[in-house]
C-alpha cells in the first residue's frame, strides 16, 4: 500500500488533474481485456519522460510497483496491477511527432492509437502494416510492449519488424535511446528487440521510431469455404507454397462462423466447416491475376465456395467481421481461456485436428480461428467459471493444448504475450537455464523489481 506522503509526492510530479485517487476511478484501471482484476493504489497520467523518470526514482526509494498501461486492451493481463502500486497510463503522451516520407519513418509517443497512426501514414501515401484486432482503440506503446501481431503478418511481419528505435525510461530512472532511425544498425547489443514484448517489465517506452512502407496500390480479399476442416488447413500450406504471396491468410472453424454469421457480408452455407479469408496486396492488375490463381487453388483443394469481395467497402466488412470474432465468442459461454499459440506452418493441420480432439475429450466448446498464414492460431476454450467441472476441464484443456503445441515445436504465445495468464506455463517452453538467465536480465535492469512485478515469470518464492 502506498503511503499518503509518497502518493502526494507522485501527484505533485504529474499534477493533481492527472492523478486518480478515488476507489471508483482507480477501479477503472484495474483490468484489461482479460477477466483479471487487481486494484491499483494510484493511477497517474504522466505527460513526459521526465515525469516518469521521477516517479520511477521514487519507486526505487519507496519500493512500490509501477505498471505501465496503454488502452488496457491486452489479452494476457500484462497491465493488471497484480501487486497494487501505481498504474502509469500513457494515453496523454499521444503525439505523432513526425512522419517522414523521405526516410520512411514515423516517430510517435506511446499513447498514439494504432489506427490513428495508420491513418496518418496513409495521408502521406505510406503504410504502417501491423494490424492487431483492436487497432482502432489500442495504443502503439502497448503494441510494442507486447510485440503485437495481426492479420497481415504473413507478408509484412509484426510490430517487432517495424520498430527501429526506442526511447525508454529505465526502471532506475535513466532515460536511454536504443536502436536508430536507419534500416540497418548493429552498434552494441540489440536492446530494442529486448524491450519488444518485454511487457513493461524492463522500463517505460516513451518514444518509438517506426519503419513505414509505401502504401500498396490495391488489395483484394477472398473468402473460401471448405466442407472439411483439415482440407482448409491443408489449403493454407498449399497457398503459402504456391509463390502467390498472400498478405493475410485467416482461418475460421465452424464454431467461429456460427459466432460471426450475423456480421458476415455473405451467407455461409450450413455444411461449411472451415473458412479461409485471404488478402492479396500489389499492383491492381497483378493482384487480380494472383487472386484468381488463389481462388482456383482453393477450389482444387476442395473449397465448396469461393467468393471475392468486389470493392473496398465489401472487403472492409469482411475484415470487420474478422475483428469481431474474439468478443463475439462470448455468445457461446460466459468465460474463455484465449490462447494464441503458434506452430510451424506444416504442423497447422495437425494442431487443428488435435484441438478438435481436446474439445471432444474435455466436452467443452473450443473456438479456433486465427492467422493461419503464419501458423498463429487463436484457440478459445469456452467455459463457465461458476461450474467447477467446466473450470477444471478448461484448465486440463489448456495443458493438453500446450503439450500438443510443444510437441509440434510451436510457441505458447504468438502475439498476446505472457503477462499473468501464461506465466505459470513459462517452463513448458523455456528451459530452467533460460528462465534463470531472463531473471538475471530482469534484475540487471530492475534491481528492486519495481517495474510491473509478477508478470512473465512463473510465481516463485523469490518473486523476481
Amino acid at each position, binding site marked *: 500500500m502506498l503511503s499518503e506522503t509518497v502518493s502526494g509526492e507522485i501527484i505533485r510530479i504529474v499534477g493533481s488533474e492527472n492523478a486518480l485517487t478515488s476507489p471508483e476511478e482507480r*477501479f*477503472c484501471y484495474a483490468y484489461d481485456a*482479460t477477466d483479471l482484476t487487481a486494484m491499483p493504489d494510484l493511477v497517474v497520467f504522466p505527460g513526459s519522460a521526465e515525469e516518469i523518470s521521477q516517479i520511477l526514482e521514487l519507486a526505487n526509494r519507496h519500493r512500490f510497483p509501477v505498471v505501465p498501461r496503454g488502452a488496457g486492451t491486452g489479452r494476457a493481463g500484462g497491465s493488471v496491477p497484480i501487486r497494487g502500486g501505481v498504474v502509469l497510463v500513457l494515453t496523454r503522451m499521444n503525439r505523432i511527432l513526425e512522419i517522414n516520407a523521405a526516410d520512411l519513418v514515423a516517430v510517435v509517443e506511446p499513447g498514439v492509437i494504432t489506427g490513428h497512426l495508420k491513418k496518418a501514414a496513409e495521408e502521406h501515401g505510406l503504410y504502417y502494416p501491423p494490424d492487431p484486432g*483492436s487497432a482502432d482503440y489500442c495504443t502503439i506503446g502497448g503494441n510494442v510492449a507486447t510485440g503485437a501481431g495481426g492479420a497481415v503478418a504473413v507478408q509484412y511481419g509484426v510490430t517487432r519488424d517495424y520498430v527501429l528505435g526506442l526511447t525508454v525510461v529505465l526502471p532506475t530512472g535513466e532515460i536511454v535511446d536504443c536502436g536508430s532511425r536507419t534500416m540497418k544498425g548493429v552498434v552494441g547489443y540489440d536492446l530494442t528487440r529486448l524491450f519488444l514484448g518485454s511487457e513493461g517489465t524492463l522500463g517505460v517506452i516513451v518514444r518509438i521510431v517506426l519503419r513505414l512502407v509505401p502504401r500498396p496500390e490495391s488489395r483484394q480479399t477472398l473468402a473460401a469455404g471448405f466442407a472439411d476442416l483439415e482440407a482448409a488447413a491443408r489449403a493454407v500450406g498449399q497457398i503459402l507454397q504456391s509463390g502467390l504471396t498472400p498478405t493475410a491468410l485467416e482461418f475460421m472453424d465452424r464454431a467461429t462462423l456460427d459466432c460471426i454469421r450475423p456480421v458476415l*457480408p455473405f451467407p455461409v452455407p450450413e455444411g461449411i466447416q472451415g473458412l479461409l479469408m485471404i488478402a492479396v496486396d500489389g499492383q491492381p492488375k497483378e493482384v487480380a491475376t494472383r487472386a484468381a490463381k488463389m481462388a482456383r487453388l482453393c477450389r482444387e483443394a476442395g473449397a465448396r465456395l469461393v467468393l471475392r469481395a468486389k470493392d473496398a467497402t465489401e472487403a472492409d466488412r469482411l475484415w470487420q467481421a474478422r475483428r469481431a470474432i*474474439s*468478443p463475439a465468442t*462470448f455468445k457461446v459461454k460466459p468465460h474463455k481461456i484465449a490462447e494464441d499459440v503458434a506452430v510451424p506452418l506444416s504442423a497447422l493441420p495437425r494442431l487443428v485436428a488435435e484441438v478438435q480432439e481436446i474439445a471432444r475429450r474435455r466436452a467443452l466448446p473450443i473456438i479456433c480461428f486465427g492467422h493461419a498464414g503464419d501458423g498463429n492460431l487463436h484457440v478459445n476454450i469456452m467455459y463457465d467459471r461458476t461450474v467447477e467441472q467446466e473450470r477444471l476441464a478448461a484448465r486440463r484443456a489448456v495443458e493438453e493444448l500446450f503439450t500438443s503445441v510443444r510437441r509440434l515445436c510451436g510457441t505458447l504465445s504468438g502475439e498476446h504475450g505472457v503477462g499473468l495468464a501464461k506465466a505459470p506455463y513459462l517452463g513448458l517452453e523455456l528451459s530452467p537455464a533460460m528462465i534463470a538467465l531472463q531473471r538475471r536480465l530482469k534484475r540487471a535492469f530492475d534491481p528492486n523489481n519495481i517495474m510491473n512485478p509478477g508478470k512473465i515469470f512463473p510465481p516463485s518464492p523469490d518473486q523476481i
Partner: protein
Amino acid sequence: MAVEVEKVLPPAKAAVQETGGLQDSRDCVRCGACMSSCPLYALTGRETAVARGKLQLLSFWKEGHLASVDRLREILSFCLLCGACADKCAVGLKVPELVKEARARIHREQGLVWHPELLLARLTWQAPHLIPRVAPLAPLINRLKSWVGQDSGLMWRLFPHLNQALAGFPDLALRPFSFQAPRWLPGRGSLKIAFFVGCGLEALFPRAGMAFLAVCQRLGIEVIIPPGQGCCGLMAESVGERDLALAQTRRLVQQFSALPVDYVVSACASCAFQLKRVANLLSDTAEEKAARRLAAKVREASEFLRHEAAYHPGYRPAAVKVVFHDPCHLHRGQGIEQEPRELLREAKGESGEAAEKTCCGLGGAFGVLFPDLSRRLGDRRLQALRDTGAEVVATSCSGCLVQLARIKSPLKVVHFLELIA
C-alpha cells in the same frame, strides 16, 4: 464471382428493444471497442467516461465494493446516452439503457438529494402548466436570459455555470405552439392522426409544429391535437427519476392510447423515441396493453410523412446548401436516417453529408451538468457540419436544436420541417 452483400437491416422502427435490467452490465467482455467511438472518451481519455469503465464499475458496486454511491452517480451522469458505444459493442449491450437503469437504482437508493438534473426533470413535469403561464412573460425572460448568458461581464463571473448553460439559448416563443395551433384539423381523406407536441416545440420551436400542420392540411390529413399535453418523460427517465417518468408515461398513455387515430406523430426525434418505448416502461403493469397499442402507432414526423403519408415536397431550389444533423435518438434510437434526407433532397436539392454521425453534445441533462464540455462537443459537431460546405443545418430533435443554436457559428440551424413544408 462477386459477393452479394446483404443490406444490414436497421432495427425495427416502430418498436425500440429494451434489455432486462442491470444484470447485463456483467456481460461486458472488457474488449474496449467502445473507446473507439465514445465522444467523451475522445475528449477526456478517461476510462470512467467510456462504457467499459462504467459497466465494470456497476458490477463492482453491485458486488458491494463501494462504500458510497456519490462518486458513482457523478461518473454515471458523465454520459451523453448517445449510444455510440453500443454501435461498437461486440456483445451488443444496450449501454444507454443500462446507464439509465443504473441512474434510477442509485437515485432510489440515495433518496431525495439535491441535484440540478432532478430540478430539470421536475420542470418537465410541470411543463404543460408552466409554458402557457410563462408565455406572456417571454420578452422579459428572454432579456433576462441573454443578460445572464452574456459573453463577459458580471454574470459570467458570478455564475459561470448558469452563464454557460444559457448563453445563446434559443428564445422562448412569444406565442407557444398551443396558442397558435387549432385543436383539430379537418381532413379530406381517410388518414387520421394525433399530434404529440412536446416541450421543445411548444415553448421554443412552434414554427416546426406549424410547418407540420401545414403539410398535413395540404395532404388532407385529419389531425387531433389533444390539449394539455405533457412531457414525453425522456428527461425524467434519463436522469433516473423513474417514478416521475412512469407518471408522465401513464398520463401519455391515458391521453393518447384510446384516441381513434391511425398514428400518433411527433416532430421531435427524442419525443418520438420515448413514445415508442412507453410499453417498455409500463411492462408488467395494468397499463401495459394500452401502452403497447400506443407505441405501435407512434411515428416520427419524417417517418410518417415518407411512409404513411407518401409526401413529396415540391422542389424549391435553395440558394443555400443544407446538411442534416442526425439526432442520436433518431438514427440509433429508431433506425431512421434516410427519411429526412429524402424529404430535404426533394425540397432543396442535393444536401451535404457530414463524415460521421456524432452526437451534438447536449445529451439531455449533460448539457446543464457539464456545460463547458458540452459546448466543446457542440463546437466540434458544428465544425464538422460546416466542413461539408453547408450554410444551413436541419435537424429534428429539440435537444439538438437547442444545442446547435446556442453555440456561436455562421450556420443557421432549423427544424427540417421548416424547409420541406
